[in-house]
């Protein structure tokens, strides 16, 4: 598989938006989620000489997963900056995205056809107590004072802890992209996988919901394995610094527990459902890397 073999259906929609964001104050916005992983995979396919933990050529399943969402992690400095807020909101609107009624000011929807919408979500870590110009609850992080309709919020995502540290930048067809450091990205994906798995295992839930949750859990777990597989040498070298910065947080500790309970060996659910996608050697390297990061709980 080469980068030419992959059709990026979302590029016409997300590409111009990301380019405009990059051109201004949004240049440090991180592309997380499935689309971030997709873009990194494309970049690695075009740069096969970049050493990563498990080269894509060695993946048993290297089909990029389909996504219609763009998850962006925005810096707290951007949320507290009124000028930046206005600029970014203008760009989002320019590309046809409208504020979602369900999740106003942090989720934006673009109607592509009668049957199809695409979504942009803004996420941010929970601000520290001493962060000025911000207010936050468990749902959203916003500027203080609020800019009302002239600004945006971000979905509170405590797992995005440390996202400002060592992001990795690359270019796909002239489009500059930054993705979160792999430790933060893992925390986000590990937590999502675990939440979904717990729903899937809960007998009080309907069979339909459990089945959906199981599929989602597997998707996020596979994302964890892929994002670790795609870690390059610079990211790997920077990881201990990120770990040091976040290891006392409850999000990191929870992620460490998830790794130990679900990702550490072959008897656990992640291996049970995903081992056929990876060779034993690849899975061991990925597990060892996760183990190296998340065994350092304070």
């Amino acid at each position, binding site marked *: 598989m080469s980068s030419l073999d992959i059709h990026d259906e979302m590029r016409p929609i997300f590409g111009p938006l990301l380019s405009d964001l990059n051109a201004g104050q949004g240049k440090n916005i991180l592309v997380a989620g499935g689309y971030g992983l997709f873009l990194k995979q494309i970049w690695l396919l075009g740069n096969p000489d970049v*050493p990563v933990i498990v080269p894509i050529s060695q993946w048993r399943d290297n089909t990029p997963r389909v996504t219609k969402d763009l998850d962006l992690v925005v810096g707290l400095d951007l949320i507290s900056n009124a000028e930046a807020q206005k600029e970014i909101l203008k760009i989002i609107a320019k590309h046809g995205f409208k504020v979602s009624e369900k999740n106003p000011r942090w989720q934006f929807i673009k109607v592509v056809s009668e049957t199809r919408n695409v979504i942009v979500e803004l996420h941010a870590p929970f601000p520290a107590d001493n962060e000025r110009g911000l207010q936050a609850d468990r749902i959203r992080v916003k500027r203080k004072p609020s800019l009302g309709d002239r600004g945006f919020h971000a979905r509170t995502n405590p797992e995005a802890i440390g996202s400002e540290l060592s992001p990795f930048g690359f270019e796909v067809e002239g489009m500059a992209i930054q993705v979160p450091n792999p430790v933060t990205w893992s925390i986000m994906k590990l937590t999502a996988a675990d939440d979904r798995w717990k729903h899937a295992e809960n007998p009080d839930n309907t069979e339909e919901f459990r089945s959906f949750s199981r599929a989602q859990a597997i998707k996020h777990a596979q994302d964890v394995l892929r994002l670790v597989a795609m870690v390059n040498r610079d990211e*790997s070298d920077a990881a201990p610094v990120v770990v040091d910065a976040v290891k006392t947080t409850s999000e990191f500790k929870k992620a460490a527990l998830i790794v130990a309970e679900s990702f550490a060996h072959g008897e656990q659910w992640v291996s049970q459902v995903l081992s056929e996608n990876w060779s034993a050697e690849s899975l061991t390297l990925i597990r*060892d890397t996760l183990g*190296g990061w998340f065994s350092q709980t304070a």
Partner: protein
Amino acid sequence: MVKNTQINEESMLSRFKVGEVLLPPLVVRTCLILGGPTEKADARVELAMPDGHEVFRFVVEAKARATPQAIQLAVAQARAAREEGEWPMIQVPYLSPERILELEKEGVSGVDLCGNGVVVVPGRLWVVRVGEPNRYRDSRPLSNPYRGRSAMVARMLLKRPRWPTLSELAAAIAAAGGELSLPQVSKAVQAMVEDLIVSKESGSITLRDPLRLLDKLGSEWRKPRQTWKSGDVAGRPVKSQFPSPLHSRRGLRLPKGMDWARALSLAPSLQWAVTGASSATRYATFSQGGPRQIAVSNLGLALSQLGGTPEPVPNFSDVELMETEDPGLFFGTETDENGVRWAGKLQAWLELQAGDARQQDTAKDLRDQILKEVRE
């Protein structure tokens, strides 16, 4: 399995028993054993179909060994002893499917003691039986000249196909890093003579069939056994929440700009060389990721020479050390102007031809180069 030192031609010929099936459905009608020293052949037999309507006469030459050389000789003797109305037949302890095909092409019949064989009378009879395993281990002095230390003789012959004397060949092998005594070299040459790959005349040795020799070396080659045990640079067991066999790989990060070749060469007792797979770029256009692999005879000594820090992810290592006793990795190496000891082209081919699809593709180029060079 029977050692075929216990077999002689006399006992082999006793298998031709009148009235019994020799190679289904052919039955032995008559058998005359010719024991005298002046006889040109070993036996004359008549074979018939079970209904007995048609009888076929054969002159038989038996050999207690089944080497290509012995088979070639038996075929020539049977043909020479053939009389009017007779067809040549040989008998050996074992006939491989490959040998049976060769006999068939030559129009010569052959039977073995395991139940395999071909009986052919052009235009009239064609009976073939294959697939029975060899129950007779060859007892030649050197059973496999294409593997292990003995294979260094074959490698040297591919580098230079003609040698005036055995001792010159042995000296060249020693100079290239092979540790073989003169009798060992002699046995390897003799085994290849029996396989019709090498000829020996008046003391000089000539490679006759480089293509088959290369194929033999390739099919007999095995990935070097890695003899190291799990541990860190200092040899201490690696502590991990997630123990893995990959911890036993000795990937190292080296200080930037370090002259690792010089550091390794400073230990005179250490044998080392870049592996064949990592040397392939020297001989062919081939891009490959991952660290440079270096074969070493003593891992502890190599680690102490290099220093550096252990790297658990192979792809992030600057070098990966492989401790091995495989003599091929240190044989016929080429040292460049920077003191790097590269594996020879043959070693590179051996490793690539047993590798993944991309490596096998590159191996084809190397094979062509090797054969071209040996024929020049």
